[in-house]
């Protein structure tokens, strides 16, 4: 990827902020970690599935707004 003009920033950047990364046990190897993340995502989607409005197509179509500012 071509990048121009940003190099001078490198000196002032700090290390990657890792504190916001998903919690993973330090001992977990990569495969275990991926499996856990997949299960995690599945659990989230299951929960979201439960609250999503039924009949997505109709619901989205009926959301009609007047323009504002």
């Amino acid at each position, binding site marked *: 990827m071509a990048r121009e*003009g940003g190099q001078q920033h490198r000196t002032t950047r700090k290390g990657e902020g890792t504190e916001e990364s998903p919690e993973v046990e330090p001992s977990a190897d990569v495969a275990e970690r991926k499996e856990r993340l997949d299960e995690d995502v599945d659990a989230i989607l299951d929960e979201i599935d439960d609250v999503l409005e039924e009949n*997505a197509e109709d619901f*989205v179509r*009926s959301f009609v707004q007047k323009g*504002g*500012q």
Partner: protein
Amino acid sequence: MSVHRVMGTEVEYGISVQGQPTANPMLASTQVVNAWANAGARARRARWDFEEESPLRDARGFELSRDLADSTQLTDEDLGLANVILTNGARLYVDHAHPEYSTPECTNPRDVVVWDKAGELVMHRAAALASQMPNNPPMLLYKNNVDNKGASYGSHENYLMDRATPFGDIVAHLIPFFVTRQVVCGAGRVGRRQDGSDAGFQISQRADYFEVEVGLETTLKRPLVNTRDEPHADPHKYRRLHVIIGDANLSEVSTLLKLGTTALVLRMIEDRVLPGDLALERPVRELRDVSYDASLTHLLRLKDGRRMTAVQVQWEYLEHARKHVDRTLGSDVDADTTEVLQRWESVLNRLEADPMQCARELDWVAKLGLLESYRDRDGLEWDHPKLALIDLQYADVRPDKGLYHRLVRLGRMERLVDGAAVETAVTEPPEDTRAYFRGRCLAQYPEQVAAASWDSVIFDLPGRDSLQRVPTLEPLRGTKEHVGRLLDRCTTAEQLFSALTAR
């Protein structure tokens, strides 16, 4: 240089009446606003004072006592009156067929987050109240900016600025900043073009709706920099910069950075420390190109021939800000400013490495992560209605249905402010601006406050023929420090007014 300055947000919410796509949105919005206003169960509601020049006569006209039955039989004249001021100093009203909440004046980005979030609670509860009225179907509110059929509605920011700063400087330095800040504070959108007719994701809700660089309009030919000049304060000292280019954010980090980074850039403009070397060749076009590129690799073309990513342009502003803070404050830098600088840097670092690392903090990344997970699991193309539904429902203000709220509950979104503080902010004003005076007058003397606006509180006092107007033209006066003890002491509005006018 600090992030501290008088600032606030104003958000128009999307509204739909469940099962009635053709319902009149002005009527529905009015019912929502009135439901909240009437929930105070006061005989009298303080009206918004539009007529700052001749308030006394007009303010009398606001003195309507209405009951719940009114709101189902509103005439057009009534519709224009759904406009109330709250004890937290905020304004709740109907604007362009949407319910809108303007935060009270705050002095720092964190407080804006708190009172902006309080607005979400007000909207959620107001809609719930309106939905409980006889014969009313549920009313649903969305903190978003588009319907994907061509309509867009605003989420604005306001910043008090020094009048002495030339507007040309503001325009020149803000445009590259505004075009690129969406990588930090975009809310994410499924659909491209104004009517959403092209399938795909984009970073910003609003990018497709801006057509010119500078102008007065807010509903047509929207400009990157809006020139509306109503300071709601002493016009010789202040300008109010009315920013119309932002997205409505649910994420607290997005809101904090939206207000905080913009406040820093404005101070640098006022202090004339920006070199002005970031002018873009085609800013309106670039706004859209940046929004359409979730990989963040698009190279913007600068007037001097350089090409930079949006994140790199943001780095330029951040580095100038760091230097200016060091130069002006050194180790005396305040915690609010440090927080904004650190978070801005942290987010830019990770956006450059892998945007998904910001999924717990930024709206557009959180939304994209959810959408991509659904695409992976269910094999959905970008034109699948389920993805459009996820985009819409992300912004549903109901805690049980809104997907942002679900992500928070699942521990997938970082919160910055305490829920108890937001709850308090539903009724209490900030203590360090004139909103404190306004809010406390409303809470303490509901029968005697006939009207109010950003720069006045108007009293209707027993035994006086005319209304009495107390101007509040100085946003940093009327604070708890200034008037807290006075308000504690004055049990009646008459006592307060006498004390104020005796000075």
